[in-house]
């Protein structure tokens, strides 16, 4: 890890000193244990705050289009997929981007830790182990035990596009996506599924952290904010919340890169990803498409081919 | 308990008049349904009210009538958003909601014994009309010195209250100067932008207050002219626009620094504005 951090800092220093970029977007140590926070480094003197570890959970591609000038971005596999979709949708200029790729073995999901040890007072990560001192007790975890659910099914830990790679790459099996989590949900009865989503949607407070953390939710005016026509009310209840979440997922059909940023951003622990994953599977099954796995190509629904399935048009 | 300030009174739309030739501004004449509502609605020129188009929402508009015109309220409203569009489409006779009066008003007490120069551009003339109308009223005219109105629009068809302007032309109690941006057929009065016309007219700043309302660009270029004429920031007033919802200084969106435009404004002197952050 330390070598990776040193290399990141060195490269950032070089890019800024040579004037190749105006800003390096990376991570620095956050104010809370096990939290990294996005940081914007504008001068070579600032690079020593940059870090890299299993707490770097934000998808920095969300800042790419909103940050003016030329920028270098520390990019994980999923972040690179988001950048690829943004490029495919002409939201970014490739020449303004310098992608510092880092392979990622996953990020930590704090939720289970918090549930067990209470507020975290101190934490240490070393050798794949996370030792935590909490208000309600201490515990040591294996990284695999607290790895974010998204990362457990990740097939693209290595950046799909980059200008420079730092550290080693991670071997991944080249098999087709399995979607075991989606299948498990699909196999539940309709009423069980309904109960599940009712519970999830009742937690949503419509703070739009999911939308704003998403690198691909970039609409100038989100459908939830539109007042003529007014698609949904400000009512915070299951029906309205589901309408928002389902609407967002449909807008991401064929575009969602399954980075999990929305679910991690949610302060209420809504399982947003369950909807996204189902939609990702459907797009894969229907179009044999995975979003943003290369710089070329178009999102599945931005393109028409004569082979496209039409089950949704004609019900047999 | 005081009356619930969120509940509008119901008023009848008795006239929905297309005011400008681009058909973007209509003047609504609303009639009080009973004496009690009118009694409760004591207002002064410069104040505004929230108009409800039921089914669409409510939005704030300056009151274009003066309290010297009993029984009714008038609003001249540009078609810009969902509420104003809905209001434009209302049939005469429809009931609408009115919440108000809200905000402060032009400092008519201070104006007493002084000359007043009213400078307005475009459709921001509504509460200025109320102000002039109030001072011109027989009961009040004696309280003020010379009243000068400099009013401009892009072309003659965009001037508001044309009949009234025609009447003021021949009224010895008021000095009316109208102008349009570019020459137009049949137009015999001034041609030019407000700032340069103001410079030409050169109203004296001695014992005089100025009230300026209009698009930001007009205000920006008129202020230096007034300064040249020796108006001080304390003698120049304007009325600000802001996105508003509650109108009560609670919902939090219309503040400029510590001041809520809906409650502490919309009328501010330039001296007051100089003390506030430049965020409007």
């Amino acid at each position, binding site marked *: 890890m330390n070598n990776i951090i040193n290399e990141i800092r060195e490269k950032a220093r070089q890019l800024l000193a040579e004037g190749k970029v105006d800003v390096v977007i990376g991570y620095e140590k*956050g*104010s*809370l244990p096990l939290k990294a*926070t*996005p940081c*914007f480094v*504008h001068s070579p003197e600032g690079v020593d705050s940059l870090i890299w570890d299993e707490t770097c959970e*934000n998808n920095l591609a*969300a*800042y790419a289009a909103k*940050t003016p000038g030329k920028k270098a971005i520390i990019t994980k596999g999923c972040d690179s997929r988001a950048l690829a979709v943004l490029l495919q949708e002409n939201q970014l200029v490739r020449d303004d981007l310098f992608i510092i790729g880092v392979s990622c073995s996953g990020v930590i999901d704090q939720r289970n830790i918090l549930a067990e040890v209470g*507020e*975290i*007072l101190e934490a240490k990560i070393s050798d794949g182990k996370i030792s935590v001192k909490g208000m309600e007790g201490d515990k040591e975890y294996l990284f695999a035990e607290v790895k974010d659910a998204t990362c457990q099914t990740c097939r693209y830990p290595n950046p799909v596009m980059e200008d420079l790679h730092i550290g080693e790459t991670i071997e991944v099996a080249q098999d087709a996506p399995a979607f075991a989590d989606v299948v498990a949900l699909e196999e539940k009865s309709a009423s069980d599924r309904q109960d599940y989503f009712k*519970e999830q949607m009742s*937690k949503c*407070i*419509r703070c*739009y*952290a999911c939308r*704003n953390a998403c690198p691909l939710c970039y609409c100038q005016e989100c459908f939830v904010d539109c*007042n003529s026509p*007014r698609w949904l*009310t400000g*009512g915070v*209840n299951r029906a309205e919340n589901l309408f928002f979440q389902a609407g967002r997922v449909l807008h991401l059909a064929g575009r969602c890169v399954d980075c999990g940023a929305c679910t991690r*951003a949610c*302060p209420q622990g809504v399982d947003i990803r369950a909807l996204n994953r189902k939609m990702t599977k459907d797009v894969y099954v229907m179009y044999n498409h995975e979003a943003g796995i290369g710089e070329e190509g178009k999102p599945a629904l931005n393109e028409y081919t004569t082979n496209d399935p039409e089950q949704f048009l004609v019900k047999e | 308990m*005081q009356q619930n*300030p*969120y*509940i509008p009174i*119901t008023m009848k739309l008795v006239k929905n008049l297309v005011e400008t030739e681009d058909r973007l501004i209509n003047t609504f004449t609303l009639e009080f349904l009973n004496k009690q509502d009118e009694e409760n609605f004591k207002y002064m020129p410069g104040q505004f009210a929230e108009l*409800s188009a*039921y*089914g*669409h*929402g*409510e939005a704030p508009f300056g009151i274009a009538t003066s309290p010297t015109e009993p029984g009714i309220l008038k609003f001249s409203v540009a078609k810009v958003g969902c509420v*104003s569009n809905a209001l434009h489409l209302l049939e005469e006779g*429809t*009931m609408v*909601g009115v919440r108000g009066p809200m905000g402060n008003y032009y400092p008519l007490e201070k104006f007493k014994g002084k000359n007043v120069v009213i400078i307005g551009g475009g459709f921001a003339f509504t509460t200025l009309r109320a102000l002039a109308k109030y001072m011109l009223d027989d009961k009040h005219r004696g309280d003020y010195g010379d009243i000068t109105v400099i009013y401009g629009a892009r072309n003659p068809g965009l001037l508001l209250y044309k009949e009234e302007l025609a009447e003021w032309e021949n009224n010895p109690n008021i000095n009316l100067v109208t102008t349009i941006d570019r020459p137009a057929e049949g137009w015999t009065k001034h041609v030019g932008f407000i700032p340069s016309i103001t410079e030409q007219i050169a109203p004296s700043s001695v014992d005089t207050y100025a009230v300026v309302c209009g698009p930001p660009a007009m205000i920006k270029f008129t202020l230096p002219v007034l300064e040249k004429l020796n108006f001080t920031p304390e003698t120049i007033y304007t009325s600000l*626009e*802001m*996105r508003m*919802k509650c109108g*009560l*200084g609670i*919902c*939090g*969106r219309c*503040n*400029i*620094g*510590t001041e809520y435009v809906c*409650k502490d404004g919309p009328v501010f002197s330039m001296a007051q504005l100089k003390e506030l*952050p430049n*965020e*409007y």
Partner: protein
Amino acid sequence: MKISKEKFGQAFDALVPEYQVIAPVSDANGIAFKGVKSFSEVKQDYLNSKLPPKAFFFPQHEKLMSYKKEGKDVTVKSELKVEDTILFGIRPCDAKGMQLLDMVFKNDQYTDPYYFERRDKSVIIGLACSKIAPTCFCSSFGMSPAGSEGSDILLIDLGDSYEVEVITEKGKALAARFEALSDLSAEEQALVDKIKSAETASKVDVANTTSKLDKMFNSPFWDTLQEKCIGCNVCSFSCPTCHCFDISEEVRKNEGTRVRTWDACMAPLFTLHGSGHNPRDNKKARWRQRLMHKFNYFVHNNGAMACVGCGRCIKSCPVNMDIRQVIDGANKAELVVE
């Protein structure tokens, strides 16, 4: 004076038929304030709720009025319905937050009837904090984990009993319902003293923040401060003092309701004019508003800071914007000579 938890529970249960009783409970998502029917449902050991209890006076979504159109006519009806309410287990930071909200919902000209009808018909039973989270920083604002401001009655947990402090007249009336009060033992008194003298470990220095901010509207500090903020509403919604709202209409055919819903200064549309002009059209302006409002404008208007140090915004922020660091940054920012 103290009351055993058993006796308190009996008194609590006896109040349920007369009042809507709100208390902390454990749900799928952590601790939440909810209506309860019995003291046995109440979560005893908790830091604080995930969302502040302000929603009981200022709901996230609230009907202001309803109307019905018939032809050109309309009938309008107020939708203000309020029950007598007891809020139990409110932490001192949140109780103080209510006092700050009182200053917003009543100003020199208007009183918000929806807020105050509920506020006036409620009694707040505060519960002092026995445990202090690392993100708690209420002591920065002259408050304390056992502060009584905003509570009508303050309880201090002594294990199997509560120490009872009556703070207001309203509290006195309710406390009359508690029976079998007894004196504290010396040991218990020592515990009470200890809890009352506790301070949060985390503190920010706000002594000069307001006067510093007076001079900082045009500071370059704001340029970089907000870069990582993603502009969501988590901090506002989880803040006990944030109170901005929107008013809109919900329509079904010829009937409708006018509602108010929480809004936030972080939303770009919050200040967008009909003309398209937006006085706060960038994140920098919006963050400046957020900080200025809490630590400068509010102080000038109400004589207090609009932050109670509950730490919710710190815990919930998806990008770890830490308000303590932001205040610290403002304190340290160099002033530019204009």
